[in-house]
């Protein structure tokens, strides 16, 4: 057990180092100097531009050799310093990300978890009979094949413009400031419904189809047939099949939860929802390399933590993984 987890941990640490390095490389090897772009936008005179340029290069730590930049980057990272944003200068990147993350969590955690539960149960239900399968499964295929943003636009148009039920822009009314009042929370929920629905419906279709296929496979497995041949009631056979069919779905859930921090780029853009996805778009449009790098770093850590959590969960739910731990593997 200990050996298994220490080995896993080592792999995760190596992955982290590699991913962070790539994350650091990307903005540096991208064409264009962010500082220059910033100065050009300010439209300064040549001499003062030169002065500001060298000041800024020093401020962002870009005047030292590249290998030293890399080391400085790691040192700063261990101090929890992600750098300073260019777009929202001089706000620190970490603060900007931290302001955006709650909106991601608010939107994606319920969307993923509820769609997972509902989709799995619905898929298992569809596998019960041919009649249900023929009616429910096509619906699932249509839903899962729908692009998020297209459904988002459709929902915004139908429920926001044609019938004025829900607002479809921002996370709360533009006339309000974030506060812990009922008015603000109510507005938050109102703005939350449409992006939530567009995410929920598409994911729901995917989970339902996945579960339906898995459970049909499990019901055709030898152990299911044996139980039936011994006269076990249907609900016992289904319960076993469900438990085994849900294992791959747990992996899927982990992957989805891991990218939560990435937000849902297109959905958030459609609804101008100020999550991390929206932030990434802004960072790219504004050549804000530090913010982009910070966002990616956040996603990397999120994916790794989620994967580790799922490794642990698997050990708990599937005895076959436990058997592998005693061996050399």
């Amino acid at each position, binding site marked *: 057990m200990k050996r298994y987890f220490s080995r896993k941990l080592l792999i995760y640490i190596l992955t982290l180092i590699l991913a962070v390095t790539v994350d650091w490389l990307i903005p540096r090897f991208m064409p264009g100097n962010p500082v220059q772009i910033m100065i050009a936008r300010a439209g300064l005179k040549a001499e003062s531009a030169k002065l500001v340029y060298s000041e800024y290069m020093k401020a962002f730590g870009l005047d030292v050799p590249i290998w030293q930049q890399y080391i400085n980057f790691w040192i700063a990272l261990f101090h929890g310093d992600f750098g300073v944003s260019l777009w929202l200068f001089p706000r620190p990147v970490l603060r900007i990300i931290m302001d955006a993350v709650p909106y991601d969590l608010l939107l994606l955690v319920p969307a993923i978890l509820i769609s997972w539960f509902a989709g799995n149960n619905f898929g298992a239900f569809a596998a019960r009979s041919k009649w249900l399968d023929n009616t429910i499964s096509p619906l699932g295929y249509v839903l899962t094949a729908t692009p998020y943003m297209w459904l988002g636009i459709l929902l915004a148009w139908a429920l926001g413009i044609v019938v004025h039920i829900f607002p479809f822009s921002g996370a709360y009314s533009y006339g309000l400031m974030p506060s812990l009042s009922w008015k603000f929370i109510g507005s938050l929920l109102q703005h939350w419904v449409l992006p939530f629905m567009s995410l929920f419906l598409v994911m729901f279709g995917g989970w339902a189809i996945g579960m339906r296929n898995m459970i049909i496979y499990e019901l055709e*497995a*030898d*152990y299911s*047939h*044996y*139980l*039936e*041949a*011994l*006269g*076990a*009631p249907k609900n*016992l056979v289904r319960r*076993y099949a469900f*438990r*085994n069919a849900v*294992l791959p779905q747990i992996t899927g859930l982990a992957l989805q939860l891991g990218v939560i921090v990435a937000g849902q780029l297109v959905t958030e853009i459609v609804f101008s929802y100020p999550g991390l996805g929206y932030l990434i778009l802004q960072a790219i449009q504004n050549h804000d390399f530090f913010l982009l790098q910070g966002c990616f770093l956040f996603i990397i850590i999120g994916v790794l933590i989620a994967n580790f959590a799922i490794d642990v969960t698997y050990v708990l*739910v*599937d*005895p*076959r993984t436990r*058997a592998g731990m005693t061996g050399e593997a």
Partner: protein
Amino acid sequence: MGLQVENLTVYYQTLKGNVQALENASFNVADGEIMGLAGESGCGKTTLGHSLVYLNQPMKFIGGRVLLNDQDMPIADMEAMNDFRLKQISIIPQYAMNALNPTRKIGKMTAELLESKKVSFKIIKAELERRLDLVKLPREVLNMYPIELSGGMKQRMVMVLSTLLNPALLIADEITSALDVASQKAVAEMLVEFRDQQCCNSAIVITHDISILYQIADSILIMYAGQLAERASTDAIIHSPRHPYTKMLISSLPKVGVRYEEKKLSGIPGKPPLLLNPPRGCRFKERCPLAFEKCDQVPPFEEIAPGHFVACWKESAKNAQA
């Protein structure tokens, strides 16, 4: 008493039509008898065995009657059969090695299965442990997952589980096929032991390995292409078979003490017919050296000597003259 099967006909439904895998089978298995059911691949022996306990799609019940201890078995009704499965009729399936749910401990699975059949696991636990001793499985297996057992252990575990409620009839489908020769013998002997200890009353042992049947079976039923060919005591089948197919089948087996260096083992020339559209009458006629015009009609499965049934026009003609 025992098992009576009358005119049982079971087809497989396919897109191309019905595969006539079991045609008009009638036979009895006496109380306490172990009957071997043999034949080559695709002759319908597994179809016969499975149809008695678990007649699922694409198998389709066409007609016939099955009586177990004078009680009608609703074999065509999947739901109604649930009351009889495990308690009256049980099966050790061909896939015994994969028959246990991989994510449940064996003891827990057994308990859940029994509770779902309204049988108290607590009461039966002592008997379960006794049977584990009988098949030489440690009692700890109940606390293990199926992956922790070897193939042979799983096979024996399934044997114990299938017979736990002392069924009147046990169907053992190819239980020795996946085992090495040493384990084959052990498993075969365990089956006899189970019968002797009243863990099951009578048994049908499905196999293509006649040498195993010679060791354990009281009688043998030979099938060919979905039809019953011959049924007699084990001795009679091995030493004095009457049906041409049985004769050729037995003569193609290697014999103890005979060297086959000079004389090659002879097989049966030809191939069995496709059962999607089988020939009329006796299905063996195309390979049979004795075939004549009358073989275009289905020969009756006739008792030509006490307990010796044969489906062959030649034999029934001899019988009529005698």
